[in-house]
């Protein structure tokens, strides 16, 4: 039977601030256990939390970036639970009146766009970290736990989407676009592997209009893991239904190594958080002028930039997605365009060979030894037929390792492409004379043999022969 897949995401983003959400303890990662603590984040009696202005601003900027309305009045709640990762036995969060509501994000897929509704964006505090110690080293069967509250109270924005996502691929594309957006506006470093961006997913499948029972999946530590976990879960649910079973509402844990999900704990306790308004914190009522100021602080966002690159330069979706993923990369691209080179060619070199080199050497685009101007120069050399595409690949590598400009390397090494017909013709004639079999094959209509003879000329010219002219000369000679 055919089923429709419905996915909603809950994303936690650790905000980049100097200090924690409600106290002045450092909010950065690491340090000896419990050295970033004070009476407020340890929940000592008599201590009072005070909101970090920057964290509130970051959350409003995030909401604006996701086309949300900013609530004219918003309050904090206590979320009560018994788990030792919060010393207060509650987490300060937001409940029915979050800072931002009702937004959307348009995700460009191959051939269509998916509009994903944003239910809400709210602000809360992160929890501490528990280390379960015991023979097995796991939660189950641990003898005791060690609590480190360095992370307790670090500001955390939570984004909840509408169940508008229809496939694991869309979920991944949405999460990647969201990550780009938060990095463009600089509110978080958005590292999934380090936990500063955490994505949980709700997924159900249904045969008709009525939604099926949803299952929550946790513990995806990369975009790839998110897509894999959802694809696994989609298939698992399909199998259960096809065999006449029913889906149990539960939370499942993604095991990346095994490539499966397994049940974590029952969800029925979820409504027992006994939320009530946090009496120690006063409401937030953002002035319109403040919101305007925050709106003006936003850079051009990935969605807008993608639209502009597509319409101004006619780039295909996949190329645009690669270029806009990081603001620094998109800036690099637009800087390289100033050379006047072909926008498609420039995009191809940046998203292709340069990205591969950066990745290989683990270098960030901001530290790239190849400057935007060098990319422009490289593309210019190809357009003017000074060098071939094959030569350009090697040239880029050399520019990358030496930091010298492509034009300079061409000059120093005499790397000029051979476009001189007489010079090429003498090589072509030699190749034809030495390879009678290939000539015979060509005359019998074998396309492969043309490629073979081209290869021989390339070899002879050490890759400098202009491919188009060489091919024309071979055909001319043998016709």
């Amino acid at each position, binding site marked *: 039977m055919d089923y429709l897949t419905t996915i909603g995401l809950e994303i936690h983003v650790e905000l980049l601030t100097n*200090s924690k959400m409600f106290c002045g303890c450092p909010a950065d990662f690491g340090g000896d256990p419990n050295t970033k603590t004070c009476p407020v984040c340890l929940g000592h009696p008599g201590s009072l939390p005070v909101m970090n202005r920057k964290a509130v601003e970051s959350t409003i900027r995030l909401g604006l970036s996701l086309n949300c309305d900013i609530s004219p009045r918003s309050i904090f709640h206590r979320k009560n639970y018994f788990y030792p990762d919060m010393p207060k036995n509650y987490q300060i969060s937001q409940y029915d009146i979050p800072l931002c509501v009702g937004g959307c994000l348009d995700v460009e897929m191959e051939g269509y766009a998916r509009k994903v509704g944003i239910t809400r964006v709210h602000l809360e505090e992160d929890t501490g970290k528990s280390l379960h110690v015991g023979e097995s080293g796991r939660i189950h069967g641990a003898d005791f736990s060690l609590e480190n509250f360095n992370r307790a109270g670090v500001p955390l924005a939570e984004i909840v989407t509408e169940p508008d996502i229809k496939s694991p691929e869309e979920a991944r594309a949405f999460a990647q676009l969201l990550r780009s957006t938060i990095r463009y506006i600089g509110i978080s470093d958005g590292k999934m592997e380090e936990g500063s961006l955490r994505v949980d997913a709700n997924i159900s499948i249904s045969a008709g209009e009525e939604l099926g029972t949803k299952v929550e999946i946790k513990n995806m530590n990369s975009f790839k893991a998110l897509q894999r976990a959802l694809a696994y879960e989609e298939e698992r649910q399909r199998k259960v239904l096809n065999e006449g079973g029913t889906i149990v509402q539960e939370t499942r844990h993604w095991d990346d190594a095994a490539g499966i999900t397994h049940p974590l704990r029952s969800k029925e306790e979820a409504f027992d958080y006994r939320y009530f308004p946090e009496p120690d914190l006063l409401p937030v009522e953002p002035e319109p002028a403040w919101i305007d100021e925050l709106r003006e602080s936003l850079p051009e966002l990935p969605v807008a930039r993608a639209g502009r690159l597509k319409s101004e330069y006619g780039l295909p979706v996949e190329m645009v997605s690669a270029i806009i993923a990081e603001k620094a990369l998109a800036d690099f691209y637009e800087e390289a365009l100033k050379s006047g080179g072909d926008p498609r060619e420039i995009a191809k070199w940046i998203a292709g060979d340069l990205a591969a080199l950066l990745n290989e050497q683990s270098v960030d685009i901001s530290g790239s030894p190849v400057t935007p101007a060098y990319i422009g120069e490289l593309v210019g050399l190809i357009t003017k037929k000074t060098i071939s595409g094959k030569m350009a690949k090697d040239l880029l590598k050399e520019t990358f390792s030496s930091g010298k400009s492509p034009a300079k390397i061409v000059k120093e090494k005499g790397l000029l492409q051979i476009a001189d017909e007489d010079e090429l013709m003498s090589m072509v004639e030699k190749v034809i004379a030495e390879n009678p079999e290939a000539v015979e094959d060509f005359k019998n209509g074998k396309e492969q043999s043309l490629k073979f003879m081209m290869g021989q000329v390339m070899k002879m010219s050490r890759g400098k022969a202009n491919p188009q002219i060489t091919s024309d000369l071979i055909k001319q000679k043998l016709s």
Partner: protein
Amino acid sequence: MSISIEDVEHVAKLAKLVLTDEEKEKFRRQLSDVLDHAKRISEMDTGETEPTSHAVPIVNVFREDERRATLSNEEAVSNAPWAVDGEFKVPRII
């Protein structure tokens, strides 16, 4: 309004309390009385009254994003009944 023994057991579980059967019955009656009282209050006409979660008319109280002195981890765990090397030790969770 009357609540059931099951309700009392549920609340006791959330509050991490262990109750005897007599206590459960006693709290069932007492909690029912409290809820009855709340019900009487909710019968009041509050149509003209703004809902309120905070008693003082002050909003937007922020601190700037600046660091303050922290405790050392020895100080942090000094009141803990069980600690080791600057970490809080707690009984097994599950």
